[in-house]
């Protein structure tokens, strides 16, 4: 059985089922009890689980700290940070406390840090791409689903994980609808999904770029180019095995992300794959990402800063006809 619901509702379904299963899950964030969070993502949960959802003051550092301490003392908190940008006010708590407790003390911190991420409205300070920084932080897991079904399946896994998971939900996918299996539907952390099979070029993406890559793949299929689209889903740990297997077949790789290209997760993937699969590559790995700039308010400026379908297509074509650079 499945129902067609939004990504946000799928998140809620996953949280609800886990809260029914496990009394230790506890939700903390601003405007949670009545509104269900800034994006109403948990609307209703407050009254369904009295005492297990709490409205916090605007104190991101204390929210995360409270989550860490509560996790060490028997709860499994979801700390809802609203926009993930506000994690910047709680970085010590995330990086120095949550991420390091298991290593130092042998006790995990089962906590989900939820944040709305990706590029959309509200300009520079609400459109930071922090995922690469989290993925570089030993002790954190990082998740960013692109479909409602994965959102449910991944939040269930995150809530069963004994370590801190940064759970990123893309602003522009909140209302995305899709079939979501009812009941026990669990997507393991650390496993990518092949969204579309193809033997010519591998495209790795996550978040809002997955659908964009699928559309480009569809277009290129009409020209006879078979693009394999891999949705990372989990950003740490990366599923390099799946990417590697694909690239060893296609010989070509494009990695796409909405984060500034420079220093993003695409660099890690490109570096790892060229290292492991150098002799399988028929062309340089292409990376597609945002310009090295804060995000603007004006829609055309936003669009100019982040990867378009055209840009993705150009990158794919570049792997098909690599230019011998002039020596």
């Amino acid at each position, binding site marked *: 059985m499945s129902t067609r619901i939004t990504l946000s509702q799928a998140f809620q379904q996953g949280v609800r089922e886990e809260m029914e299963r496990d009394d230790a899950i506890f939700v903390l964030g601003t405007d949670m009890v009545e509104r269900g969070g800034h994006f109403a993502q948990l609307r209703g949960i407050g009254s369904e689980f009295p005492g297990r959802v709490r409205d916090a003051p605007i104190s991101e550092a204390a929210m995360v700290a409270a989550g860490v301490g509560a996790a060490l003392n028997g709860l499994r908190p979801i700390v809802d940070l609203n926009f993930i940008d506000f994690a910047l006010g709680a970085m010590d708590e995330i990086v120095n406390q949550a991420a390091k407790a298991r290593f130092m003390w042998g006790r995990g911190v089962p906590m989900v840090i939820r944040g709305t991420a990706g590029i959309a409205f509200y*300009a520079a300070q609400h459109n930071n791409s922090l995922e690469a920084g989290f993925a570089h932080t030993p002790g954190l897991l990082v998740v960013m689903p692109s479909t409602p079904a994965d959102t449910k399946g991944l939040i269930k896994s995150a809530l069963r994980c004994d370590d801190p998971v940064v759970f990123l939900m893309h602003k522009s996918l909140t209302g995305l609808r899709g079939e979501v299996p009812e009941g026990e539907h669990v997507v393991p952390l650390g496993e990518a999904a092949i969204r579309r099979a193809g033997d010519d070029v591998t495209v790795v993406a996550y978040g809002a770029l997955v659908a964009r890559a699928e559309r480009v793949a569809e277009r290129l299929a009409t020209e006879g180019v078979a693009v394999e689209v891999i949705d990372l889903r989990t950003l740490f740990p990366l599923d390099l095995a799946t990417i590697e297997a694909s690239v060893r077949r296609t010989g070509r790789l494009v990695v796409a992300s909405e984060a500034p290209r420079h220093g993003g997760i695409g660099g890690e993937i490109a570096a790892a794959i060229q290292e492991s699969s150098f002799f399988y590559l028929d062309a340089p790995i292409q990376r597609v990402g945002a310009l090295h700039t804060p995000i603007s308010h004006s829609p055309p400026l936003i669009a100019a800063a982040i990867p378009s379908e055209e840009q993705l297509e150009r990158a794919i074509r570049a792997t098909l006809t690599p230019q011998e650079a002039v020596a």
Partner: protein
Amino acid sequence: MIDVSEAREPLPVSLDGLDGQDLVEWLATMQLIRDFEEALDPLCLSGRIPGGVHVAVGQEAVAVGAMRALEPGDVVTSSHRPHHHGLARGVEPNAMMAELFGRADGTGGGRCGTMHIAAMDRHYYGGNGIVGAGLGLALGAALAAQVRGSGQVALGFFGDGAVNIGRVWEAINMAAAWKLPLIAFCENNLYAVETPTASVTGGDSIVRRAEGFGLPAVQVDGQDAGAVHRVVREARERALAGEGPTFVEALTYRYQGHNTGQVTSYRTDAEVEEWKQLRDPLVRLRVALTASGLLDDDAYDALCARSRETVAAATAFADASPWPDLATADAGVTEIDPKLRGNP
């Protein structure tokens, strides 16, 4: 706060010692702010303004009262609810509206949008998308003012929700310890999004909390522009006399939801009505000006008409303004152009 349980008509305002012509300008600016902001919701809902905005309808006296107590060289920083501050500081309505529309003629050429509109030439360091962060910039401006002996003060606005952001208290402590010329200005409109701030705030008084950091803290009726003006003026004088920062808590109210189109079911109609009927800052100022003969009905009508025209003209200006040049999307991020050496 004044006890309103017996009041049936708008409360008086305290205009002692203020210049009559100035006060008419104050009312005109407050009217402009109200008209400007009331025009925004439909513009957002129709998509002409991308995204939503936080409007401060009901909070006009705070902005105008405070801003008119400052000098042109003083530094001001604002919050996520910034239009009233910006307009009171003299940001051009045309340029503000074009910025909201995301157009090339906006204050930031479309880069900033609602929360970051600034006017650096007026020492107005703009709104801030991060609760409490504007105060930090004001702190720094006050530090520079002290070090340079520039004779400026800096005023940072923030909401009641920001009193639970730790960095706000770091800034206040630093200003108090160093006797910086800072005015930490809390617009207490009782709610942070949909959460009554009192329900998540320890203690029963924001000013008492502030006093614990070793600076004078005054609560003022934020719907009385004159009263706000007086406390800011006094705070400014203290600051310039080297006596350090002042904390101001202005009691005010936002009539609309937190952001465009948002519901307000978390508060009672009676509460909203009481603020509108008895405390509306525009009505109160107008009544006082009329009573003292400074503003007759014709003059008031003319003022309102000018305000409406300004807003209409700003909207037309914004509509006519071109979209930004896409080639500049990543220009001016840093002074050094990194592309020079191959990245990014």
